């Protein structure tokens, strides 16, 4: 039935002790996963998002080479120059080239947001496995705490923690990671609750496997779909939240040419007619979050139908 059966599972190597259903199930799972990735590459929204994200990743890596000017070089005689042939996006209040700052500005957010999301996903997965697997008192206590945590908007918890700890990229990564963990834990918990009822979990328990082995080696691979979906969705929220924190002056810190920081520093100027130092970074943020969310939409459709 499955022509792509991997070597080693063929009839020649089958041993008497290996139950036949398990390799079959593993193969089916692998087949399903391949099908999901094929679906993903056919999704137009996913490809569109990936292309835009790719563009910004290139800007982040090679920004200093691509940028026409030094993004930090001030030019007080030439401040707030309107867009022209010399400065396509104009210059900001310190005479810095806005185009160069928009290009290099991709760096911080593209490091901070994925790391924060990764941290949140790792913590949330462990928390979700624990609450979903043990249920009972562990689940009740942790779930109540998670509920209390979720009653506050992410941005408010983030603001309070960052004010208390002092803003820096590392603080932002930890705070956003910690704030996202409960949300991810809730999704993983729901997936684990259905998964733990399957026979393979009971079988592993009968084989006397370690609880940690059952959770991480047996259940975890089977809930990887929802976790992947949750990661891509949360990455969009992380960019949203970190940009907002930077805009409020409590995320990424000046003089980094981060987009949120640029808007924070100069949005007071727009009522004076100086729109270019604010509009271009705003469009950059918009394109990045939309790209990540389009990708997340593609991933959700591919992996939740499967």
């Amino acid at each position, binding site marked *: 039935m499955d022509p792509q059966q991997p070597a080693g599972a063929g009839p020649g190597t089958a041993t008497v002790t290996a139950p036949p259903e398990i390799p079959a199930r593993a193969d089916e799972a692998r087949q399903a996963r391949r099908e999901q990735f094929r679906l993903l590459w056919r999704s137009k929204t996913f490809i569109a998002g990936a292309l835009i994200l790719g563009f910004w990743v290139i800007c982040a890596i090679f920004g200093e080479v691509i940028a026409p000017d030094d993004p930090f070089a001030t030019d007080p005689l030439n401040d707030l120059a309107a867009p022209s042939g010399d400065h396509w996006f104009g210059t900001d209040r310190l005479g810095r080239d806005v185009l160069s700052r928009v290009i290099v500005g991709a760096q911080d957010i593209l490091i901070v947001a994925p790391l924060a999301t990764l941290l949140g996903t790792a913590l949330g997965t462990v928390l979700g496995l624990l609450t979903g697997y043990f249920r009972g008192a562990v689940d009740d206590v942790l779930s109540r705490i998670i509920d209390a*945590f979720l009653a*506050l908007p992410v941005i*408010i918890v983030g603001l309070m923690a960052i*004010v*208390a700890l002092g803003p820096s990229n590392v603080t932002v990564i930890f705070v956003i990671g910690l704030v996202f963990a409960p949300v991810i834990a809730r999704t993983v918990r729901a997936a684990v609750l259905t998964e733990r009822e399957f026979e393979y979990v009971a079988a592993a328990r009968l084989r006397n496997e370690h609880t940690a082995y059952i959770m991480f080696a047996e259940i975890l691979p089977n809930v990887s779909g929802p976790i992947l979906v949750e990661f891509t969705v949360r990455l969009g929220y992380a960019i949203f939240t970190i940009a*907002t924190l930077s805009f*409020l002056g409590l995320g990424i810190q000046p003089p980094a040419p981060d987009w*949120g920081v640029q808007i924070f520093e100069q949005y007071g100027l727009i009522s004076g007619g100086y729109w270019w130092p604010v509009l271009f970074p705003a469009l950059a943020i918009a394109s990045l979050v939309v790209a990540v969310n*389009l990708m997340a939409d593609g991933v959700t459709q591919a992996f939740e139908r499967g």
Partner: protein
Amino acid sequence: MARFIAKRVLLGLITLWLLSVLIFLLAQVLPGDVGRRILGPFADQKAVDALNHELGTDRSLLAQYGDWIGGFVTGDMGESLAFRRPVDDVIGPALVNSAKLALLAFVIVVPLAIVGGVYAALKEGRPADRVISVGGISATAIPEFVWAVVLILVFALTLDLLPVTAQAPPESGFFTQLKYLLLPALCLVFVLFGYISRMARAGTIESLDSDYTRTAIIKGLPRRTVIRRHVLRNSLLPTIAVVATQIGYLIGGLVVIEVIFNYNGIGQALFDGLQQKDFPLLQSTVLIVGIVYLVATLLADILYSLLNPRLRLGAAE
């Protein structure tokens, strides 16, 4: 039913208590020495100690927590350090202002998102559906402050139709206030639209797929009647209940919007409290935000179960 509600209320109260502990820890314990924070690193230790004694922050954490909660319940939230006024005097008008802004945003977004979502569901898979779905995702993904910048540039500065601030002059009438609140409310509308329309779309698609809809079609009812009587009735009521849970996100957005548009609401009060390290103001504001969210979700839960007897009976066991 009464048992179900009692259980939900009890769980809500436990969550609320945990929330108050969490806020207390975030606002009191994380910042460390409050007197030192206010007076700065170069202040004399004696002055710091004296201020801590005056503020009561040199007592045990348990005593401070008990004092705060006791005061909060009786309506005495202490004195704001930044405004030198009782905290309830600052929070009261701010709550009213924020409620106005939030209400306007909801009045615009709920009908718009439901119509959009239902229309997308009826055209599932066709271009109209893709446009609404992708447009909704994009509108929701873009942070409020980015929408604010773009909308201010277009409607306030280029077209000169609407004011740049949200605070209407004192004593202004309903329509003047409306004019001032329109731009900030629109920023919130964009961010809320995607989520609510997605819920409405999913609910409608689910009930279009159901057996009772198929039965109604096979019975020979006209499509209009099937949609109005069978599809919408089942898909929309849960969607409306879900809208209540969006209040949490809305308040997060209010912080940013009120700061940009210079509007005297709960978000601005919270941000001031943070920046000025005004912990009495901060604690109580955040707790009120949490209470608003918990009450809204509780009402949504009860409403949802009233509309869905299967869930009510299942959850009450």
